[in-house]
């Protein structure tokens, strides 16, 4: 009989939308190939224009995703435990198109680009979920930009 995996990071990943479709062994592989690090409140995880190198899963705390348009900040989203970010630049293979800043002390699981791509190749359910999330977020961002533009005109 297979023993259940009790690793705390596996349990945390199991609570992340999309990753809940993976089995314990797959999640354990992801945990083994990733690193959990902490960002103090106010620090930037990455900035617009920097290379997309990883997917970030929020384990605790909160980050805000924002852009700067005509010297004004447009907040796109706030992301907390059980959610991930950074997938846009990985899917499109571009530099980051937004800034991400910790709004409180935050612990993130950092999954490198190479590892993330391997995971997607072997897990079509997760790949579908990530793609859907990507499309929804892009549509949401477009809507925020239009709202911002309308408020300026």
């Amino acid at each position, binding site marked *: 009989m297979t023993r259940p995996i009790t690793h705390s990071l596996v349990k945390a990943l199991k609570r992340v939308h999309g990753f809940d479709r993976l089995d314990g062994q797959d999640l354990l592989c992801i945990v083994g*190939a990733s*690193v*959990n*690090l*902490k960002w103090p409140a106010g620090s930037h995880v990455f900035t617009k224009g920097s*290379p997309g*190198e*990883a997917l970030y899963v929020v384990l605790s705390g909160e980050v805000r995703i924002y852009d700067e348009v005509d010297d004004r900040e447009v907040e796109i989203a706030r992301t907390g435990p059980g959610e991930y970010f950074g997938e846009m630049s990985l899917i499109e293979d571009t530099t980051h198109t937004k800034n991400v800043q910790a709004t409180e002390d935050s*612990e993130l699981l*950092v999954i490198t680009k190479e590892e993330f791509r391997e995971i997607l190749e072997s897990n079509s359910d997760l790949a579908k979920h990530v793609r859907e999330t990507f499309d929804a977020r892009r549509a949401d961002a477009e809507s925020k930009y239009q709202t911002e533009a309308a408020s300026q005109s």
Partner: protein
Amino acid sequence: MIDVRGERRIDRPVEEVFEFMADLDKLPLWLAGCRKAWSPDGNGRSVGARIIHEDEFMGRTFEAKFDVIEWEDDKRAVFEAVSGPFRGTSEENFEADGDATIVEIRVHGEPAGFLKAVGFMAKRQAQAQLDRSLDNLKLVLEG
């Protein structure tokens, strides 16, 4: 590859700046991420001495060991990291500028351990940590 440098002009004499930075008990006052430092070889102020740090980096705590590979009072000290999430050298250069001191720190090497997996972040974080250390140094010494 990590290759970062920074320098500050500190409005204190070079002997005082060097003495402060060489004092392992004072390391946590200025070196970002350092919680404690000691040497099993006395005060750690000679070539061949080992210096051990208890450090914290992005929520991770670890012990890092350094060997002193160059030491010249009031001029230069070079440390080689032999364990911890970084392998390479850290150079400290001191130059008198009237009654003030120009302090330069260079860090050169490769990420290791947990940092190796996220090596893309290492250079940016190393530069941020170095800048913070130099700012701390200036603040503490100039008061």
